[in-house]
C-alpha cells in the first residue's frame, strides 16, 4: 500500500499517523505539502489531525481551499481511498467530500480523552479487521467535533449505512453520557457513498501501540494494508 499524508500549515498529527502507516506497511508514507499541485500516485491519502491554518475562519475551511485539495478531491472521485482524522474530517466536510459539519463541542470545551466506539460495519477497506459491533477504545482530542447535518442527510446516512463509528459506553449503549461532544446520533465517523472516503473525529493513530495504552487503533491501518496491499 502506497500512502501519502497531506501536510497543511498547522497540521500536528501528520507525524503521528506517519508512524502508524510505516509500522503497518514497512515503508514511510510520502508527506505532501499543501501548496503542491498534485498528490503522487497513492493507494491511500490521509488528511491528518491538527489545526490547519490555525482553525481560523472555521476548522478545516481554509485547508479545503488549499492547492493540493483540488487533486485530493479529483482522486477521491476516481475511487482512491481517503482517510480524514479529526481536522482531516473537518477538511473533508468543508471540501464537500463528506456531508455535514463539525460544530463546537456541546460543552464548548476542548476534550481530550479515551472514548469507546461502536464499529458499525466492517465491510469497508478501513474496518476489515474489526468485527461488526465491536466496541473499541480510541482517544478524541478536539474542540469542534459535534457532528451536525440536516434531517434528510441524516436519514440518508443512516439509510445507506454510512455511519462508520458511534460513541458508546463500555457496554455498547448509545446514550447521551457516552457522547462527548453532542454529535447527532452519537456519530463519530462517516463514509461517503462509495465507502472509500472515511472521516472520523477520534484518533486511531493515538492508540496503535501498547506502550501508549492500547492497540485498538492499529487495526484500522492493518485493515487498510490488507485491503489495498
Amino acid at each position, binding site marked *: 500500500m502506497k500512502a501519502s499524508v497531506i501536510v497543511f*500549515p498547522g497540521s500536528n498529527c501528520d507525524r*503521528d499517523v506517519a508512524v502508524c502507516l510505516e509500522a503497518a506497511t514497512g515503508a514511510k508514507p510520502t508527506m505532501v505539502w499543501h501548496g503542491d499541485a498534485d498528490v503522487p500516485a497513492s493507494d491511500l491519502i490521509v488528511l491528518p489531525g491538527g*489545526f490547519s491554518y490555525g482553525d481560523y475562519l472555521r476548522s478545516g475551511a481554509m485547508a479545503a481551499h488549499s492547492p493540493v485539495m483540488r487533486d485530493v478531491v479529483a482522486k477521491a472521485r476516481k475511487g482512491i481511498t481517503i482517510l480524514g482524522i479529526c481536522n482531516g474530517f473537518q477538511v473533508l466536510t468543508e471540501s464537500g467530500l463528506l456531508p455535514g459539519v463539525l460544530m463546537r463541542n456541546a460543552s464548548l470545551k*476542548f476534550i481530550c480523552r479515551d472514548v469507546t466506539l461502536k464499529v458499525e460495519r466492517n465491510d469497508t477497506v478501513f474496518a476489515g479487521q474489526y468485527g461488526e459491533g465491536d466496541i473499541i477504545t480510541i482517544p478524541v482530542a478536539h474542540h469542534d467535533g459535534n457532528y451536525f447535518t440536516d434531517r434528510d442527510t441524516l436519514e440518508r446516512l443512516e439509510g445507506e449505512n454510512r455511519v462508520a463509528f458511534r460513541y458508546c459506553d463500555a457496554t455498547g449503549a448509545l446514550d447521551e453520557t457516552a457522547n462527548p461532544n453532542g454529535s447527532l446520533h452519537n456519530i463519530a465517523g462517516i463514509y461517503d457513498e462509495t465507502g472509500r472516503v472515511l472521516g472520523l473525529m477520534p484518533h486511531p493513530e493515538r492508540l496503535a501501540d501498547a*506502550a501508549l495504552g492500547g492497540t485498538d487503533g492499529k487495526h484500522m491501518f492493518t485493515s487498510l494494508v490488507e485491503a489495498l496491499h
Partner: protein
Amino acid sequence: MGSQATAPLTSELVAEHGLTGEEYERLLGILGREPSLTELGIFSVMWSEHCSYKSSKVWLKTLPTEGPQVIQGPGENAGIVDLGDGHAAVFKMESHNHPSFIEPYQGAATGVGGIMRDVFTMGARPVANLNALRFGAPDHAKTRHLVSGVVAGIGGYGNCVGVPTVGGEVNFDAGFNGNILVNAMCVGLAHADRIFYSAAKGVGHPVVYVGSKTGRDGIHGATMASAEFDDNSDEKRPTVQVGDPFTEKLLIEACLELMAEDVIIAIQDMGAAGLTSSSVEMADKGGVGFDLDLDAVPCREEGMSAYEMMLSESQERMLMVLKPGSEEKAEKIFRKWELDFAIVGKTTDSGRLVVSHNGEIEADMPVKALADSAPEYKRPWTPTTPPELLAPEDVPAPNSITEALETMMASPHLCSRRWVWEQYDHMVMGDTVRRPGGDAAVVRVHGSKKGIAAACDVTPRYCTADPVEGGKQAVAETWRNLTAVGADPLAITDCMNFGNPERPEIMGQFAGCIEGMGEACRALDYPVVSGNVSLYNETNGAAIPPTPAIGGVGLIPDIGKMANLALRAEGETLLLLGPELGHLGQSLYMDVMLERREGAPPPVDLAAERRHGDFVRELIREGVVLAVHDVADGGLVVAVAEMALAGDIGVALAPNESPLPAHAIAFGEDQGRYVVAVGDHAGDIQARAQQAGIPVRVIGTTGGRDLVIPDEPPLPLATLRQLHEGWLPHYMQAM
C-alpha cells in the same frame, strides 16, 4: 539623536519607567549624556527586575548548577541535560503571573508560547508542556473566571501548536486572591551535538528577524511584571500580549528546518523586552555590537516609533545571526512557512547597540553596560522564624478517619484535576506513555525505548511556615515523584514566585527558600539548570505565599520498566517505605478539617530521602513493583485512596500498633515515603528494606470494591470516586 531626543526627560517620565533616581544617575554616567526617550525605554526594560534579576541574582548564584549530566546550566534560554545516546533534554519553567491575572486567556497562552520558544530556540523540538497554577480561594469572586480563562488559554495555545500538555499542579489558596501564579514549563528534545546558543560571535554578519510582525502590544510588559498591583491593575490590560499559536507552530517547523542546515551562528527568541533584550543579550554574549535598522522591521501597524518597536512584546518572533551568504537559503524556508523574514542589521566591532529609524540614530549605547551593569542589590532581609514542631497528640482527632478522608478527597486541594487536563491535548505526538494524573508524566524519546519524566511541585503552606524546609521539600518532592515512576532524576528548573523584594521579610523568604533548595539539590545530585524569578506578586501590600515552583526532569532508560500509581491486581500487599512520625504541622488535614495552619512543616531528611528513593527505583527496575505512589499532601490514607481510585481496585488497610494517634498515622505528612504494591515478594522486599535501613510496614491488602479502614464501615470506591471527581466540574459549572 532622533527627534524624540529633543523632548525633555522629566523626573516623572524617569519614574514612570520604573527607574530610581540612583539608577538614572548611573545611566547618565554610562552614556555621558542625557538619554533619548528610546534609550530610556531600553535601559528601563533591561534594568527591570524581570530582565536583570537585580534583587535575586546574589542569591541565585548560591544554587548548585553543575554535574556530569549537565550540558548547559542557567544563563541561556533554557537548561540542558544529557540523556545519553546523543539525546539531550532542554527545559525551563517561566512565570506569566501578572499578565494572566489581568487577562487570563491571553496571559496564560502567551506564557506557554514564550516558554516553548525558549526551548526550540536552542534547537530542541518541544515534546512536553507542564504548568503549575495557583489560584485564589474558591469563594473569591474572581477565581472561577481566572481558572476558566487560564486553563482555556493553556489548552488553546498548546493544543494548536501540537505539543502535549502532560502534567502540572493546581492549587487554591486565599493567599493568591490578588495575584495568581501561572508557571509554564516546557521540555524539548535535541541532539546533544546540535545545540544552538545566543552568542552572536563574528563581525559583519547579518542580523535577521523572523516570525510575526511587530505591533504595539506588550510594550513595557517586563516593567509591569516588576511592579505591584493595586485596585486599578485591570487598566494594564493593553500591556498584555496576544498569542497566535498557529504562527508559533509554523515558527517551530521553520526554525527546526533551518537548524538542520549549518547556517545559524546565534538565535534568540524575542520574549520579555522584545527586540531590546534579544539584541542586547546576543551582542553581549558574542562580544560584538549590533547596528539595527528599524525601517526593515516588519510592522503590523503604521507609524510605529523606535521606542515602540524596541519595547514591543509582540509574540512569535525570533532574532538570528546567520552566516554570511546563507540569507537566501534561510529566507526560502521562512517564506515556505509563510512567515516574515527581514535582514534588520549586522554585527559590528563597535561594542555598541546602534538603532536607526527614518534616517536618524535613535539610540547608541554600549552593549556591555546595558547587559552587565544592571544594578545588583543585596537587599536587607529578615529570616522567617519557623514555628515549633507540633506534637501529634495536640492535634484534635476527627470523628472517623473515613469521614475525614471523604472530606479531604472532595476538597479543592485534593480533588481530581481531570476537568483541567481533559482540556489539554496530552497525547499528540504519540509518545505520552504516562498521562496526567500520576506522580510524574512520561514522554517517550521518539523512536527509542527511553522516556523523559517530568513533574512540578511546591507546597506554599510549608514555605510560608519555614522557607528553608519548604524549599527543601519542594525539590525533594519532585525528585520523589520522578522516582515513583522509575526515573533517574537529573536536574531541575525553578520558578521563584515571591512578593515585593524591597520588604525584608519577603527577601527573607526568598533567601530561606534558596537555602533549602540548594541543600536538597546538593544532597540529591540534582542541580538547577534554568529558572525564572517573579517578584512583586503583591496587591495593595499583601504578598503571595512564597512559592518556589520546581520542575524536575528525569530519565527512564527503558519504558518497559516503569511504574505508576494505579493498583494492578487483587491480593497484593501494600508496603509503606519510610518513617511514621505523625507530623501534622502545616498538614492538609489541619488545613481542611480544622481550618488551622500551625506548627512546623515536616522536616526533610535528605540522606533518608535519597536512600528510600534509590531503593524504590531499584524495585521498579527489577520489575517487582508496578504500582508506586509517593506520600504527599494528605498523608498515607490519601495516597492509598489515590492508588485505589487509579486502579479501580479496593484496599483493606491493616491495623497498626503505633503508639501515635490513628489520625496522625493516617494523615501525617512525613517526608521521604512511598507506598508500593507487591505480589509474591513482600517478605523478601521487607527484609531488603530493613537491611538498607529503611522503615517498612505492611499497611494493607488490595482487593474488593471498597476502601476499608480498620474498625470503620467500608467506603465504596464508587462513592469515593464521585466525591473526588465531582468537586471541580461542579464548582466550574456554577459559573
